[in-house]
Structures are given as structure tokens and as C-alpha cells.
């Protein structure tokens, strides 16, 4: 009596015991959804949360009807990395005001990959602030759009005020290999950070 719902659902392998997550963040239309879709082994899923402008959940405001609410979508995908381990990628919205959503996303996350577009570097400041406030380690990936200017790394680093140790990579969110390499740079960086802190 298997329902249609259960029979075509891609379940996590039985042997998997550990699930981790990495956030894919960036400003509007920088390529987050594309990136998650390129790497995910399942059809990416999407959830929607209704948030008030203040950042509280609508559920916390039962009965108050005239608050402005917005629907925030986040999409996510999954990669099975070993018999034991799956990695989830969450494409996170760049709006700072959704504090509760961000707390939820950041809790337990290994780190964040910040996608930037060289034609709109300034638009990345807000999202970098959020990631830093959440205390998440991160790497920056320039998602190269056709027609976007190519700046030397040093100029991008300076414009974004990156620490010397923060990885800066170029990637194409539509390309699997390139997107995987960006993720590898991030995890390599996380490993260095964790090996340093006793």
C-alpha cells in the first residue's frame, strides 16, 4: 500500500548516519539557485517561510493581522559523500532582517560559500555582514557572468575587504566541476581553521 508520494521520493541511503550543511549565500540573482541545482543529486527542493518585516515568525504574532509579512524562499539540495555522510546545500536569501531564519540556517552549518558578481560587488556587503555576524567561516566565489568585468583578485579582495586567509575563487555556477572545486576550497579552508584551533 505504498503511496505514490513515498515510492518516488529519493530517500537518504540507509547507511547514512551523519548529515551536514553548507550555506550558499549571495545577493539577489547572483546564482544561488543555479549553484544548488548544479551540484544536487536530488531535484532541488524549496521551502517557504512567512516572515514579518521585523524578522519574527508570523506564528509568534497570532491574532495580529496588519503586520507586513513576506514569503522567504530557500532552496536546497543534497550530495551523498560517503556511505555514512550526506551534505546539504542551502541557498539562503540575502536579506538581513530575517533573523530567525538566519539563526536556523546557520545553526550547525559547517560554513558558507558567498557568491559574488564582479559587476555588483557592493551588493554583497549586506550578505557578508550577516555571515560574519553569524560567526560562520566562509569562502568567496566569483560567479562569472558573461559581460561582468574581470578584475585582478587583489582588487576584488580589496573591494570586499577580505582577510588574507579567506579563499577567493572563480566559478561558474552552471558547471558541475567548477562548482565542486569552489566547495572544495571552502572545506579545505574550514579544515585549516579547525586544525589551528585546539
Amino acid at each position, binding site marked *: 500500500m505504498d503511496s505514490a508520494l513515498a515510492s518516488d521520493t529519493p530517500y*537518504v541511503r540507509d547507511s547514512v548516519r551523519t548529515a551536514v550543511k553548507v550555506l550558499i549565500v549571495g545577493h539577489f540573482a547572483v546564482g544561488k539557485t543555479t549553484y544548488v541545482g548544479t551540484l544536487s543529486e536530488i531535484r532541488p527542493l524549496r*521551502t517557504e517561510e512567512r516572515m514579518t518585516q521585523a524578522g519574527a515568525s*508570523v506564528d509568534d504574532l497570532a491574532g495580529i493581522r496588519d503586520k507586513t509579512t513576506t514569503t522567504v524562499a530557500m532552496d536546497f539540495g543534497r550530495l551523498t559523500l560517503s556511505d555514512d555522510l550526506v*551534505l546539504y546545500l542551502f541557498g539562503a536569501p540575502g536579506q538581513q532582517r530575517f533573523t530567525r531564519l538566519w539563526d536556523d540556517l546557520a545553526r*550547525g552549518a559547517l560554513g558558507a560559500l558567498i557568491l559574488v558578481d564582479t559587476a555588483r560587488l557592493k551588493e554583497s556587503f549586506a550578505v557578508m555582514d550577516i555571515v560574519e555576524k553569524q560567526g560562520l567561516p566562509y569562502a568567496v566565489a566569483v560567479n562569472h557572468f558573461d559581460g561582468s568585468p574581470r578584475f585582478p583578485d587583489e582588487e576584488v579582495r580589496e573591494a570586499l575587504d577580505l582577510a588574507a586567509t579567506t579563499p577567493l575563487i572563480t566559478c561558474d555556477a552552471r558547471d558541475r566541476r567548477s562548482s*565542486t572545486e569552489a566547495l572544495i576550497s571552502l572545506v579545505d579552508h574550514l579544515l585549516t581553521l*579547525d586544525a589551528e584551533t585546539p
Partner: protein
Amino acid sequence: MSPRRNERSLVRPHVVTGGRAHPTRNVFDLVTLVIAAGDLPRAGLSPEKLRIVELCRGGALSVAEIAGHLGLPVGVAKVLLSDLVDSGHLTTRATAPAAQQSKVRLLQEVLDGLRARL
């Protein structure tokens, strides 16, 4: 593909959760893996809880995936999942270990897994 999969819940979240905004336990991360536990009687479960139990019978899924498949906001899904763990219908699988030493091992495993995909 089932047309039900992407159907948005037509019921107000508050009705679905019986008016509660917070789960009875705060153990659910977005990536906590959830699976059905045994074959408890399902009589008396609300339609939404029934759908969750049905979905979870097939194997393990993360909290975020369950919410995504059933078109529920994550906050609502957490409340329902928490109830279903309390009632013994569902159980969770251990997620990421906390200790620093195993964190390094975990990151190494992530790195190896990613490199193997190149």
C-alpha cells in the same frame, strides 16, 4: 511523479499545528534525519501528520526535505515532527558530532567525498 508533491498546504499553519507555534522539543535542525519508527497505529493522527508518517515510512529524510516534499513551512513541520517523535511514530538519526577532534575528521570526510566527485 505525484501531483501531490508540490501542493501547497491549503490549511493555515496554526490550524495544522493545533495553534502552537513551537515544537515540544528543540532537537530539530534543518538537516536532522528523520525516519518512521515501527508500525504504530495511525488512528487519530491529523491529515498532515498522516502524510508525514506515510512519507517517512519509505526511508530517512531531513527535516528540510520533509517540509519541502509536503509543502509545509519548516517551522510548522518541526512542530508536527516533534509531536510524532513524542508519540513514537518517528525517530531521529544522530547528526554531526560536536567534539573538535571528530569535527576535523568529519571535514576531512567531506573533503574526500567532494574530491571523489571531480
